[in-house]
């Protein structure tokens, strides 16, 4: 454990912009990919008219 406090943790030794900028954009990219994929699956299901047993998208 390296961090004295939550503030220390978020400050990242003065590199907060670079470190959190990396982690935030990575999280954003993954969230966007999953969201787009889910939409694609839903659109397909609507088009194919399968409402009953929906395949996991």
């Amino acid at each position, binding site marked *: *454990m390296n961090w004295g406090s939550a503030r220390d943790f978020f400050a990242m030794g003065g590199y907060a912009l670079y470190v959190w900028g990396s982690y935030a*954009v*990575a999280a954003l*990219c993954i969230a966007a990919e999953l969201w787009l994929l889910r939409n694609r699956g839903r659109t397909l299901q609507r088009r194919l008219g*399968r409402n009953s047993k929906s395949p*996991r*998208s």
Partner: protein
Amino acid sequence: MVGKLWKYASPQAFYPLAGALAPWFFAAAAVLGAIGLYIGLWLAPTDFQQGDAYRIIFLHVPAAWMSMFLYVVMAFWCGVGLSMNTRLSFMMAQALAPTGAMFTFLALWTGSLWGKPTWGTWWVWDARLTSELILLFLYIGFLSLHAAIDDVRRADRAAALLALIGVINVPIIYFSVKWWNTLHQGASVSLTRAPSMAATMVAGMLIMALAAWMYAIAVSFVRVRAIILEREAEADWMRDTEAA
């Protein structure tokens, strides 16, 4: 055994298999990602040279590895598709490309944010960075070429050819730090010598890489299912089996 595996070369057989496996790979990715982040952001000590800026490594290296690895896998499926004319291979290549492009973008993005505090610049046109940027263009080119051709079978073949030609770029990226003078450091981890980092850092990095790998498998399985549905919606087996 081989005969059994062959069965899954058909979209019809692979569709339910991919659907059954994807949640497990998502779960593995989530668990490994949580452990990796815990090690990387919490347990791993501050680097004595780079301070905490080095913590970008836990994203940067896995993203860069996946960007190259996924391209090779994608090109492999393109090669299989071209030589054996298997539909599922082309679909798999299409399913891998967006995720590969995302990891390439992340490798560039995190690299840029790492370069600024350590090198003093967001970007340089050196061998490693430029060849990685070319990789991003190859992924985008692969997807756009495919999207530009209406006939899916022709699109598959044209895009596959592009992917196979582009695979030459991967060893160039990997060895660029040896072949040319570059700002980018050499490999921190190799199979032939001890890593040049603390054990906790290496552990965090490898676990994050594993998480990225599991994530890539999970996402491409879900995406290949969507592609199978899109392409084979009119096939009999689709109408018969209430998609599992």
